[in-house]
């Protein structure tokens, strides 16, 4: 009998319900720094966690060393201080077959990846000889097994590939840095990379021109990335079952109320093929489903795992996420915001003086539960007479996500992937403050 079977036997004997989660992963990465290959690395990791319930009280522990004696002794000590809980580990049900694994990633050879990175850095250096570029690939494959006392037994296999490239140009005391990336389950093809690199070059040339910050109260347009960092990041905190179950979220008890502009539709969709954030079962074994968070401005639902769902008298929404060494908690899968009807070029061309916000520094470090945000605009552009004319510096943006989304101007037709787990449009709003 291997150690994990011994542990399982101990759990069966001493508890009403139990669950074991095991994960093994292999990852390799290649990174270039300052235009040169810097490091080629690999990472192997494994570990397991157990949760067990007796008399509606739960105990959790995790380990990566598979030492039976040690694990049981920790578990016994912890079970003297269990945490109240009212859940049943789920039985196995049929799920969708969203594609979250592709063995194609194993076929990428290091030589090819290194060559691709080198080629693209050289492409940037051709136009910007004084640039200093970092770039990299990371590829991972992971296998997990989740089984519980309700006879659920799920094996899951996932793959992941990410690419990034960034370029820094220093002029005097100004350090400009522009960063592009893409994450996927199966492949990042050369066409995607070409597109990212040509966008990066285009932005580098505009951004080297530093211009005055527009006046306070000007229209503000967020890029998909800027939209996540400023408005959605604090907003999503309030949709988490963790905060809803404890009455910390300002959305508590407001299901069905119109809290946002009716142009806003946001959902959490775990069933997008080849997206790294997709999942057929959540990390407690609950079958996943698409959850609508905001429907035409109306707050529809938060995201719950078993525990926070039970504490809120709601069902799990199939949103449990976890790492080996942490308890499950509600997490997002793919956050998708519906597109609008106007192109971003048309939005920009209507603006006399405004600002396009792309990257923020220090966002998410305040009191996010309040919806407040405040950050330095690390990459933002000035719009003048319908055109992007240059980059703004030493400028801060602040506001409240709830206020900013209550009444918005426009949402763009185009959408873009953000962090490999979100599909977001450009958004134009007036209810934020710029200071410089």
């Amino acid at each position, binding site marked *: 009998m291997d150690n994990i079977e011994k542990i399982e036997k101990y759990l069966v004997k001493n508890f009403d319900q139990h669950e074991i989660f095991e994960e093994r992963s292999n990852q390799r990465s290649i990174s270039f720094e300052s235009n040169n*290959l810097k490091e080629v690395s690999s990472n192997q990791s494994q570990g397991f966690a157990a949760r067990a319930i007796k008399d509606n009280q739960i105990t959790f522990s995790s380990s990566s060393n598979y030492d039976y004696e040690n694990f049981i002794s920790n578990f016994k000590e912890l079970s003297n201080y269990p945490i109240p809980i009212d859940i049943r580990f789920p039985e196995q049900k049929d799920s969708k077959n969203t594609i979250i694994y592709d063995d194609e990633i194993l076929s990428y050879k290091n030589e090819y990846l290194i060559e691709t990175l080198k080629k693209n850095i050289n492409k940037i250096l051709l136009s910007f000889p004084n640039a200093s570029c970092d770039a990299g690939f990371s590829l991972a494959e992971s296998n997990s097994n989740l089984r519980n006392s309700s006879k659920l037994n799920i094996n899951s296999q996932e793959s992941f590939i990410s690419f990034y490239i960034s370029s820094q140009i220093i002029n005097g005391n100004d350090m400009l840095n522009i960063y592009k990336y893409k994450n996927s389950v199966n492949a990042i093809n050369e066409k995607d990379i070409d597109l990212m690199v040509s966008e990066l070059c285009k932005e580098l040339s505009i951004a080297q021109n530093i211009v005055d910050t527009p006046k306070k109260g000007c229209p503000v347009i967020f890029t998909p990335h800027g939209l996540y960092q400023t408005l959605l990041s604090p907003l999503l905190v309030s949709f988490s079952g963790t905060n809803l179950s404890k009455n910390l979220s300002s959305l508590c008890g407001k299901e069905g109320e119109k809290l946002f502009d009716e142009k806003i539709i946001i959902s959490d969709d775990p069933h997008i093929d080849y997206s790294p954030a997709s999942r057929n079962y959540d990390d407690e074994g609950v079958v996943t489903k698409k959850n609508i968070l905001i429907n035409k401005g109306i707050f529809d639902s938060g995201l719950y795992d078993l525990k926070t769902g039970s504490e809120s008298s709601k069902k799990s929404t199939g949103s449990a996420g976890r790492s080996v060494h942490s308890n499950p908690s509600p997490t997002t899968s793919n956050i998708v915001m519906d597109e609008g009807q106007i192109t971003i070029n048309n939005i920009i061309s209507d603006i006399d003086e405004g600002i396009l916000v792309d990257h923020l520094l220090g966002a998410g470090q*305040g009191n996010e539960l309040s919806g407040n945000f405040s950050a330095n605009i690390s990459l933002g552009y000035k719009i003048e007479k319908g055109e992007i004319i240059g980059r703004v510096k030493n400028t801060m943006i602040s506001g409240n996500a709830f206020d900013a989304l209550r009444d918005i101007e426009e949402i763009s037709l185009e959408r873009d992937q953000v962090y490999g787990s979100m599909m977001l449009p450009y958004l134009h709003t007036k209810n934020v403050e710029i200071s410089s």
Partner: protein
Amino acid sequence: MNNNYENLINDVLKTGNGDYKEIRLEENKSSRITYSGKVRENISINSRLGGSVRAMANGGWGFSSFNDIYQAPQKMKETLTLAKYNSNELFEIEKNNPIRTKISPVLKKDPRKIKLSEKINILDHYKDLILSQEDIESCDIIYADTDRKVVFADSKGNNIEQNFIHVVLRIAAYSSDGNEMLQSGFSIGSLGDYGIIENLDSEILDCAKKAKDLIDAPKVEGKETTVVLDQILAGVFVHEAFGHLSEADNVYENERLKEILTLGKKFGNKDLNITDGAKIPNLRGSYEFDDEGTPATKTPLIREGILTGRLHSNETANKMSEEATGNARAISFAFPPIVRMSNTIIENGKDKKEDIIKDTKDGLYVKNWYGGMTEHEMFTFSSAETYRIENGEIKETLRPVKLSGNLFTTLKNINGIADDLLINQGGGCGKGGQMPLPVSNGSPHIRINKCLVSNG
């Protein structure tokens, strides 16, 4: 650590060729207790075992990490293959006198000897105390202690075993103005002293009162203004505003940055002195040897406003022809060492805090922290407490603010450094996906002119 590792280490270092090879093995056990509101949310004990090997070839690195340590010799073989993809300028790892040593942990009151029940009792008491205060709606408590044993060995004959015991506690109290949740909190930490967790009643009452005071506090409008920073926030400021750019891995292969950050260049006024050093004893960023086996030092970064030093790994020191400072650190065996701060402080000045405030006509007194971030020359950091200063007096409480600045102007805008240095050990630092690394920051009260602030 387990004696069997000695043979494993020898096998790994004998594997293959390569210009330089090293291995780290780590045993780690951490206990964590968290509360959210009335309920104890989580108690867990995690144990981890793992290792990593790193090899240099053709002027670059191969690195592999693993949980299954008996794979280590095989992983070294693979790592040597990975390293050979490099084709960079060659450099030497200079280590002349091999060290074989085993270093005992810094310990005052050992958290490993405190029963779980005792830890829970004291935290239960703090939770009840916060929640019994008027207008307090909820609280967060996060307690953790970690016992980390690491052995480092390399092909130059070094073999160094170190043991670190860390204790951290974060407490936050929540109030509400009917519209927004408001919070006040504090973080403390120590190297090897559970005693810091005890006798915190007055700090907790103070924290609850501050959360209550926020209810009627007005928001600050975004503007440029004079700010007086308390020691804790000034510590975060020096870490973000200057510390990260003193890390040589940002600089050593970037010709333009090398010019900008030439030693001898003026970055601040004559009364500004900044130091980083793991050699400063008994703090959370203290150690005898870094994760490349280099002895810790104390590095003067700024003396009388002039840039005098920077933080190095072996590689960056070699490539910049400067001395290694022992600042190559990894958060765990799973990551390669990179250049990091340890204990970073602004040294005492000659001013008195009272005089600095008295001398400020219009501005903000900002205290305590939520966080901070740096991106190249720009940085932001956020206060947990803010008060208006008017005609030299501290007035009403305001909502927390975010402060933002630029390396090249903000350090020169410091125009008041008090003589009341205090070091905060409740923070952790993130870089390159490695977070939170134990560090400490310290400073006396300082005043900065023309700092950009906005409602946090």
